[in-house]
């Protein structure tokens, strides 16, 4: 009985498949199932194709619109010679300093080009709320250098509409894991461990709506990720009426570039969501993961952010507050003096107590 060994795996249990000359089929040693050769070859071909084409081409052609001549006439632009930020605002608003780097000289220019946003989420938090939030943010930060909070120019906080791409999309997932269930019991003088191995497979689809990615190269991605989420219930079709009093940044990162991070986030969430449907295993080792993303719509939106950029000891510190929800984030400097004071302030008394106990 001639048998040819192939490297195909059983689709049901991942056991190796052998070609049996007797039946003319591929046979699994483990679960005993048999398959037509053509079926398995087709399956592998599909998988290869699926793995090759997982980067979707987002359709950004529908994102953003054109400004009318009248709208253009009411727009102004400013450029920051220090960090290169390009800002737009309506003619009733004047920019006095760069919201990103704090540079006090911004150069006005002629408005040109640029897409008109599809959506805008209006500011709900005013400047007073932002100032208050920042003050509160400093409070309770035990390692914050005292002088930092004192020297901070909280009043220079600025409201800015940050450009975002919003991605709609869906993902199809094929995952398989090796799962173990472990049972331990005592038998006589032996500790017995029985480990049962399972092949766990999950497939399915999932959709994502309006995953945001900031479209400004000046804005650190980590800052914009951290002030999420924006509540889309308040999203409005873009209108001039929301601009006065605020600056708006022009997008300078195209949708295709931004989509890379969005793809990664969708992929990670898809894997997590389907992995979460697996329960009852002591260990779960991924064996095969194939996530296929399907393109959806891309929209261009302006989202409200309060920004404060400040310099301290030659380093830039940028704080951002979600202008809709009030969530404030930003990295703060660490006072190492305070750090070690806390370290020894906690450890030394504890050592004294522990030693007293240990030596008695």
């Amino acid at each position: 009985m001639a048998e040819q060994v192939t490297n195909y795996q059983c689709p049901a249990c991942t056991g190796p498949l052998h070609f049996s000359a007797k039946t003319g089929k591929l046979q699994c040693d483990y679960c005993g199932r048999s398959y037509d050769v053509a079926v398995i070859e087709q399956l592998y071909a599909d998988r290869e194709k699926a793995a090759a084409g997982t980067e979707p081409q987002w359709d950004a052609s529908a994102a953003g619109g054109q400004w009318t001549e009248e709208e253009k006439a009411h727009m102004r632009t400013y450029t920051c010679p220090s960090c290169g930020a390009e800002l737009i605002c309506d003619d009733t608003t004047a920019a006095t300093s760069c919201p990103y780097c704090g540079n006090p000289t911004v150069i006005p220019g002629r408005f040109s080009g640029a897409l008109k946003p599809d959506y805008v989420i209006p500011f709900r938090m005013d400047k007073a709320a932002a100032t208050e939030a920042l003050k509160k943010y400093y409070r309770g930060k035990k390692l914050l250098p005292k002088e930092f909070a004192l020297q901070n120019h909280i009043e220079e906080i600025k409201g800015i509409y940050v450009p975002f791409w919003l991605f709609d999309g869906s993902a199809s997932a094929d995952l398989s894991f090796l799962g173990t269930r472990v049972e331990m019991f005592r038998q006589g003088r032996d500790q017995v461990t029985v480990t049962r191995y399972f092949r766990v497979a999950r497939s399915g689809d999932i959709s994502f709506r309006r995953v945001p990615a900031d479209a400004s190269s000046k804005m650190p991605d980590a800052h914009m990720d951290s002030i999420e989420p924006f509540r889309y219930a308040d999203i409005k079709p873009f209108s001039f009426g929301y601009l006065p009093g605020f600056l708006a940044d022009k997008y300078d990162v195209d949708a295709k570039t931004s989509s890379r991070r969005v793809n990664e986030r969708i992929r990670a969430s898809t894997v997590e969501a389907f992995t979460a449907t697996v329960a009852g295993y002591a260990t779960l080792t991924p064996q095969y993961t194939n996530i296929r993303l399907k393109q959806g719509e891309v929209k261009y939106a302006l989202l409200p952010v309060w920004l404060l950029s400040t310099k301290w000891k030659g380093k830039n510190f940028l704080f951002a507050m979600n202008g809709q929800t009030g969530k404030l984030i930003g990295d703060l400097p660490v006072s190492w003096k305070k750090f070690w004071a806390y370290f020894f302030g906690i450890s030394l008394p504890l050592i004294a107590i522990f030693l007293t106990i240990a030596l008695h």
Partner: protein
Amino acid sequence: MKRKILPFLLFLAFAVLLACPVSAAGGNRVTDGAGLLTQAQCDELNRRAAEISQKYRCDVDIVTVNEMDGGDAYEAAESAYRENGLGYGSEKSGLLLFLSMEDRDYALVAYGYGNTAFTDHGKDVMLDDNVLPLLRKDRYYEAFSRYLDLSGEYLETARAGKPFDVGSDPKRKTGAVAAAVLVPFGIALAVCLILKRQMKTAVLQRTADRYIDRDSMHVTRAQDVFLYQTVTRIRIPEESSRGGGTTINRGGFSGRSGKF
């Protein structure tokens, strides 16, 4: 059992006859039936053992034989102890290190006040860290000498009211002190790192969970197929004397035996 022990006792009596002469005060503390020591070494050990016995009112004995008649070393040691009338005073207090050379068996048994002075942990430290390593290298005189030294030390600490045990073991004490210093440092470092983390709030998001369209997730295939199983067995080690104290058997002895 008795039948087995009788010839062994005859042998033991013979061995005692061959053994080195009795030293100054009351009885023979070292009985070298297997001939592991020179006469001078035997005399020297005997003298020291007798001194300890007198000083602490607790015998410290050594018995070596070429072979025992079946049985195990522990029982042989108990028999030797009883039949030879070892032990100090009416309580028959004492400690006996017993060796049988044929299969390299050892036993260390205590009786009477010996049970108080030589705790399970004390006996473990005496054997595992001191006597057995020397016996394994056939350095018998040094092993016996170490045995007597430690016995003296244990009896001295016991006389002061605190027999050498789990809590008084300097090695464990060092461990406790090290933990008392390292654990607070660990706690303080953890607290400080948490405080430091509060200073960094701008972090990249790795997932897009909150943008999952509600009810959009469909699981089209969910298979859990059993493949195979493995079984491992591990022998559970004997209960150790971690709690301290001395475990005394029904015959009034405490101790342990094994091979060296």
